[in-house]
C-alpha cells in the first residue's frame, strides 16, 4: 500500500481507461498511461494511431467520451483547456498555430501573458516590459535571436517550429507536450532541436510525438507505442528498439494480436 501511494505521488500524469470516439471511430480506445515527474517519453505509432488525439485530450482541446485524466493527483478530466496551463501543462501543435501577423517577440509575449493573467487590462504597465524581456530570452533560447522583430508569417518553416517550442516553454511548464517538433526540419535543425530538448530542466516532464526515430529515441527514456487508438507496447528505448512489433508497424507489415500480446508480456 505505501509503495503504491508513493508511485501515485511520483506520477505527474495518470490516465485511466481514457476513450475518445468521433462517431464510429475510436480515436483513443481505453488508454492507461502513467508518467513520472521528469520523465521523457516518446509516443510512437503510425498515422491515425491516436497520438494527437491523446495530446488533445490531455491539453483539453478535446474532451473524452470515457475515462479519467489526473494531473498531479487532481482530477482534470473536465477542466477547461484555458485552466490546464495553470496546472503546468503546455503543448505545441503538429501544424504550427502561431499569430502570423505579429512579431516573434509579440508571439512569445502572448504566451507569457497567458500564464501571467491580466488579459483584460487596457493599460501598459511596467510589468509588460518585464514580460517582453522574458519573451526575448525565450526567443533567444530557441535560436531566434536575430528574428525577434520579424513578422511570424515571413519566418521559414523551421523557424516557425522553433517558435512553437518557445510558446510551450513560456510560464515554467511542468508537463510539456510536443507534437512532431521535428516535422519538416532540416538535419541541422533536427540536431539543434535535439540539443534544445536535452537541455530542458530535468524536473520538466516531456511527452513527444515524433516520427523521426533519431530525435525521439535520443530524447526519450521511455517509449509508448500506439496503434488504432490503443497502447500496444511500452518500455525503455532499448526494449522498443528490439521489439519486432514496432518494426512491423513502421515497416507496414501490419500487426497481429498475437504479437501484440507478446509485446505486452
Amino acid at each position: 500500500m505505501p509503495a503504491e501511494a508513493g508511485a501515485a505521488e511520483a506520477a505527474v500524469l495518470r490516465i485511466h481507461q481514457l476513450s475518445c470516439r468521433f462517431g464510429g471511430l475510436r480515436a483513443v480506445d481505453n488508454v492507461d498511461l502513467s508518467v513520472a515527474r521528469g520523465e521523457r517519453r516518446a509516443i510512437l505509432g503510425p498515422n491515425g494511431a491516436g497520438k494527437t488525439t491523446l495530446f488533445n485530450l490531455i491539453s483539453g482541446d478535446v474532451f473524452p467520451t470515457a475515462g479519467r485524466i489526473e494531473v498531479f493527483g487532481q482530477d482534470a478530466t473536465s477542466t477547461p483547456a484555458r485552466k490546464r496551463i495553470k496546472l503546468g501543462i503546455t503543448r505545441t501543435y503538429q501544424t504550427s498555430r502561431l499569430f502570423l501577423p505579429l512579431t516573434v517577440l509579440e508571439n512569445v509575449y502572448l504566451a507569457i501573458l497567458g500564464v501571467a493573467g491580466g488579459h483584460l487590462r487596457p493599460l501598459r504597465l511596467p510589468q509588460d516590459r518585464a514580460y517582453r524581456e522574458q519573451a526575448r530570452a525565450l526567443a533567444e533560447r530557441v535560436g531566434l535571436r536575430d528574428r525577434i522583430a520579424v513578422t511570424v508569417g515571413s519566418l521559414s518553416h523551421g523557424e516557425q517550429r522553433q517558435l512553437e517550442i518557445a510558446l510551450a516553454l513560456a510560464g515554467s511548464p511542468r508537463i510539456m507536450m510536443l507534437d512532431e517538433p521535428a516535422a519538416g526540419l532540416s538535419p541541422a535543425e533536427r540536431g539543434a532541436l535535439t540539443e534544445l530538448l536535452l537541455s530542458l530542466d530535468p524536473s520538466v516532464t516531456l511527452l513527444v510525438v515524433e516520427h523521426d526515430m533519431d530525435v525521439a529515441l535520443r530524447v526519450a527514456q521511455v517509449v509508448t507505442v500506439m496503434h488504432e487508438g490503443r497502447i500496444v507496447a511500452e518500455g525503455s528505448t532499448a526494449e522498443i528498439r528490439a521489439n519486432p512489433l514496432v518494426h512491423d508497424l513502421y515497416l507496414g507489415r501490419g500487426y497481429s494480436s498475437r504479437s501484440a500480446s507478446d509485446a505486452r508480456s
Partner: protein
Amino acid sequence: MKLTGLAGWLWLKRIGLAGVGVIVVLVPQLFSTFTASAIGLQTLVLGIAAASLIFLNAVVGMVSLAQTALYGIAGYTVAKLAVEQGVDPWVAALIAVLITVVVALLFGALASRSEGIYFLMITLASAVIAYYFFSQVSAFGSHEGINGVAPPALLGKPFVDPTGMYYTALICSLLLYGLIVYVRRTPFGYALQGVRDEPVRMRTLGFNVPMLRMAAFGFGALIASIAGVLLVWYNSNVSPGAIDLTRTIDLLTIAVIGGLGRIEGAWIGALLFTIVQTYSPQYTDRFETLIGLTFLAVVLASPGGLAGIAIGLDRWVRRRLGEGLERHGPGQGRADAG
C-alpha cells in the same frame, strides 16, 4: 546620394499629412456652413461609427452589423433623457454611453460564442430587432422618433453654425483614434489580436476567448455610442430611419471603401461616401448605383480599401527609391524589413 530620393518622399509625405491636418482643423473657417456641416461634420460622425466596426474586424476579427443598432440605443437614450426628462445633455450622453456598453456586453456574452458568418448573422438579426423595437414602441415615438433634441449650449446650433459641433466631433475622433491605437499595444489589445489569429492556441495559452470577444464587443460599443450621441445632437432628432438596414449597409460600405484593416480607413471611407451622397443628386438620382460602383472600383483596386491603396502606393514609391539605397548599404534595407 540616392538618399535624397527617399528623404524627399518622406518630406513630401510629411508636408502632405500636415497640409491635410491643417485643412481638417480649419474646415469651419475655410468652407461654407453647408460644407462644414454636411461634409465635414457628417464625415467625422460616420467615421467614428465606422471606426467601431473596423476596430472589431481589424483587431479581433469580428465583423459586426450591430454597430448601427448600438449607436441607435445611445441616440435614443440621449434623446429621451434630454427631451422628456430634461437631463443635462452631457449627463445624458454619459448615461447613454454607459447603457449602450452594458447592453453590448450582455449581447456579447451571448453572441461571442459564435464565430465568422454565424456571429455576423446574429449581429444582423440584432440590428433588425433594434430597428423594429424603436419603430414600434410608442414610448420611443414609433415611426416619428424623438424630435427637438438640443445639443449642449457649448456647441451652439449645428445647422446655423457648425463650428462648436465640428470641433467636438473632431476631438472625439482624435481621442478615439488615439485610444484604439494605444489599446492595441496593451495586454488587452494583444490578447484580442491573438484571438483574431489563433483562438485555439489562445485557449491553451490560458486565455478566456469568449470573455475577450465579449469585452471587445463592449469596447466597440463604446466607440459606436459616441457616434450615436453626436449624430442625435447634429440632427437634433432620432428616428428609426437612422438605424434601419440601409444605414447598417451604408456603414459596412464606408468601412470597406476606407479599408477594413486600418482604423484610419473609417474616416477616409466616410469622407468619400459623404461626398458622393451629398453631391451626386445634382447629377443623377441613382445614388445607390453610384456608391455601389465606387465600392466595386475600390474593392477591385485593393482589398484593403482606400487606406490599403495609400499604404501600397507609399511602399511602392519607397521600394523604387530604396533600390539605390540597398546597393549602398544593405544593412539599412534589413533594418527596414525588421
